């Protein structure tokens, strides 16, 4: 497995764990309120700090363990995979965000729009890594 594919696995896993952690907090707060809870800056900051710290640690470990490959620039095939995955993940994000906008137009619930848009950004980032892994595996 190439260094980039391992990185994609690691980053995807970190984002999934952080996303579940964040939305569990939101679900608990919403259950306590009996409606969609407003976004809490503390939750968002906790999510960002978790992602940053775990990514830095994981990438440092990966970089040290495979120094040469980690420093090598992406070749043409890898560049295409990265671009293709980035392009496709854009559709995932757009779908989620537009769904959130349409729901807002019906429900007028800004908190729900926030959580849907934030969730779409998380899912699109995870999807980008998933597409990269799939394209690496497919031997594109």
């Amino acid at each position: 497995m190439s260094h980039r594919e391992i990185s994609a696995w690691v980053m995807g896993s970190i984002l999934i764990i952080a996303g579940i952690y964040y939305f569990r907090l939101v679900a608990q707060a919403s259950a306590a309120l009996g409606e969609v809870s407003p976004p809490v800056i503390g939750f968002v900051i906790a999510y960002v700090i978790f992602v940053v710290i775990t990514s830095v640690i994981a990438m440092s470990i990966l970089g040290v363990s495979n120094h040469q490959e980690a420093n090598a620039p992406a070749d043409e095939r890898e560049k295409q995979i990265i671009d293709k995955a980035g392009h496709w993940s854009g559709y995932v994000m757009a779908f989620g965000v537009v769904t959130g906008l349409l729901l807002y137009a019906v429900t007028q619930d800004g908190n729900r729009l926030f959580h849907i848009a934030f969730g779409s950004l998380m899912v699109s980032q995870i999807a980008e890594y998933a597409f990269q892994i799939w394209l690496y595996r497919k031997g594109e």
Partner: protein
Amino acid sequence: MSFWEKGYLAVAAILVLAGGGYFYTIWQQSITLESVAPPSWGTFGVYLLVITVLTLSSVAVLGRVQTINNRTSDIDEMINLKSRATASHVTSAAVYASLVWFLFHGDGSLLFHSTVGALIVGELCLCMLQVFNYNRAY
């Protein structure tokens, strides 16, 4: 200038025109209401209609349908992919900015309009990147 460059420039101009019109209308409505106007299906429908009609018209005017169907070269594909991937990241950054802003003002309608703005900025960025990458002969 190729058909695609002209096409993307035309779509960028249409996005600026329609987006400007949309936000001007929202601004006027907000002044009347003395608060941020909630999204209106009418305004949004007109915005989508204007974009669709003007885009189709520009394609018809620039009209070289044969060229459109022939977009298969590797360099075209690379330019297209790279531009779309970068535009997707720009859109994400703009949506993140809207969300961070919402954390401070807490106004759902403002979040709606700023997110629509973020999507327009992303599309505009896509058009400009396509033109830029064509000229750069990526």
